[in-house]
């Protein structure tokens, strides 16, 4: 579609920023497993997924550039934490492998559903690129699922670790669906059906899987989304991540690297 009005452009930008920032920051976190994974095959898998995510974020920043924002490198490597719209879950440190795995499981199923919805978007340039991402994220969910199945069933220690990480991450994951100021415009203009629909569809995929693996999401204390990320409110972990990410680039943003 061609955008009809300024409000639609603002709505599209808000949508692109949050998806791009989620993917950049989680990709960055996943890349921290390189050389440190529990087995070589997982170093390699996490690196592949990180490359996909960071590549996807770059494409999305390019779309933003088409809508008048600065180029992808400038947008990614020069903003401070208050200008980032990622949900707080993605910025948390990698922790132990179970934590990174459960985050990967919860995030990638949401990303897969989000891409399914956006593949039907009236914003054609976005619909076109997310169709490509669906082919990538399919392997991410397959990877997450394989490991969740194995580790939740292997032995008591691995099951307990996965359950504990799930407890730690559930409310964080709900923060992925924090609504923005443009939900109505996005829906009316056919760009995106909205966070509520996304969340319902995600729950319909994720809850049966968790149940199948003998994992539980308690009714008490576990349905309180950790919001704020979409509005630029972040944990103490984001700024150090950004400082590290921008360490070399910021020495001379005008230099050719």
């Amino acid at each position, binding site marked *: 579609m061609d955008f009809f009005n300024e409000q639609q452009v603002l709505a599209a930008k808000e949508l692109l920023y949050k998806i791009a920032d989620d993917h950049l920051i989680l990709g*960055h976190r996943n*890349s*921290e497993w*390189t*050389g*440190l*994974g*529990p*087995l*070589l*095959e*997982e*170093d*390699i898998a996490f*690196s*592949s997924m*990180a*490359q996909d995510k*960071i*590549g996807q974020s*770059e494409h999305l920043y390019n779309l933003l550039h088409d809508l008048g924002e600065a180029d*992808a*490198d400038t947008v*990614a*490597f020069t903003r401070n934490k208050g200008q980032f719209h990622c949900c707080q879950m993605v910025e948390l440190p990698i922790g*132990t*492998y179970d934590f990174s795995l459960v985050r990967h499981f919860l995030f990638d199923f949401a990303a897969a559903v989000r891409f399914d919805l956006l593949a039907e978007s009236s914003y054609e340039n976005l619909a076109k690129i997310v169709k490509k991402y669906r082919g990538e994220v399919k392997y991410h969910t397959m990877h997450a699922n394989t490991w969740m199945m*194995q*580790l939740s069933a*292997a*032995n008591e*220690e*691995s099951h307990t*670790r996965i359950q504990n990480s799930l407890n730690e991450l559930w409310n964080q994951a709900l923060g992925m669906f924090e609504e923005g100021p443009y939900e109505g415009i996005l829906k009316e203009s056919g760009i995106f059906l909205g966070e509520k629909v996304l969340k319902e569809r995600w729950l319909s995929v994720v809850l049966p899987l968790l149940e199948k693996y003998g994992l539980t999401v308690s009714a008490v204390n576990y349905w309180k989304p950790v919001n704020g990320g979409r509005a630029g409110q972040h944990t103490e972990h984001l700024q150090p*991540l950004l400082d*590290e*990410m921008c*360490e*070399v*680039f910021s*020495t*001379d943003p005008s*230099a*050719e*690297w």
Partner: protein
Amino acid sequence: MYGNADIDPNLKIHSIVADEDPIKLAAFEARIAAADKIEPRDWMPKEYRRQLIRMIEQHAHSEIIGALPEGTWITRAPGFRRKLALMAKVQDEVGHAQLLYSAAETLGKTREAMINDLISGKSKYSNIFNYPAPTWADSAVIAWLVDAGAIINQTTNAKGSYGPYVRALERICYEESFHLKYGHDNVVHLATGTAVQRISVQKAINRWWPPLMHFFGPPDSISEHSVILMRWKVKMASNEDMRQQFMDMYVPKIWDLGLTLPDPKLSKNKETGLWEYTEPDWAEFKRVINGDGPCNKERLAVRKMAEEKGRWVRHALLRKDAEYVTPLA
């Protein structure tokens, strides 16, 4: 020196093959002379097996330890292009370790045993990764010149006689050639960039030159041991030949970029066609190999931490009813 033979200058051929069946040995040597590849289920002399396990294992360790100094720059790489390329490059290195551990396993040592020997310090890895990479320019110099050295070592070893190692090396060399392009492009950008970039890459070159001169190891002594390992196509070229090849290919390229090398004696002798250089400090080389380098402790501590933190995951993959079967001839 990613993987290299262990030469004992005093070892005589008759003692190396004393226990071997002379008929089998003759048939084995005839196959190698005919450029046949030796496969895991084939008969092979004990010393051949021992040397290959050692070489391939060291090479695999070098790949995973080598992922550490560069890996720390993934999260700092300036811009999407470099970040994505460096991630893919380091991922390749870990993949090489996976291929090489598998190749070594065909000779009868498990991956777990190899990694335990790495962590305990019993088994070595390339000395060059015991040096720090304090700046982005260091990561560029590693990607260009350490990978260049690795390619020379690996294309040489790829002409060897052990099938699984040769096949792994062919694929590794193919990927390394992209790393070299990435590293060269990165160094070119720095060397032709701002004053700060140029200074940083010159400093990095100065830091890495001595370890690069150590890379292929000290000149080998010619002995009966080295002769037989060459005949068996375990050792394919002398350390000094590989070092000369490296200097021949890369010193002019470094100079072309307006960079200097910290060795006033470095020049090519037109008559001999050989490079002349200040003898590297081999005492330091030995000291670092034996654990007393700037980063030995840190590298092994990181590897040990990763192994310990990941133990429960590997344990959760074990099937209770399955027994490990050595994939051995």
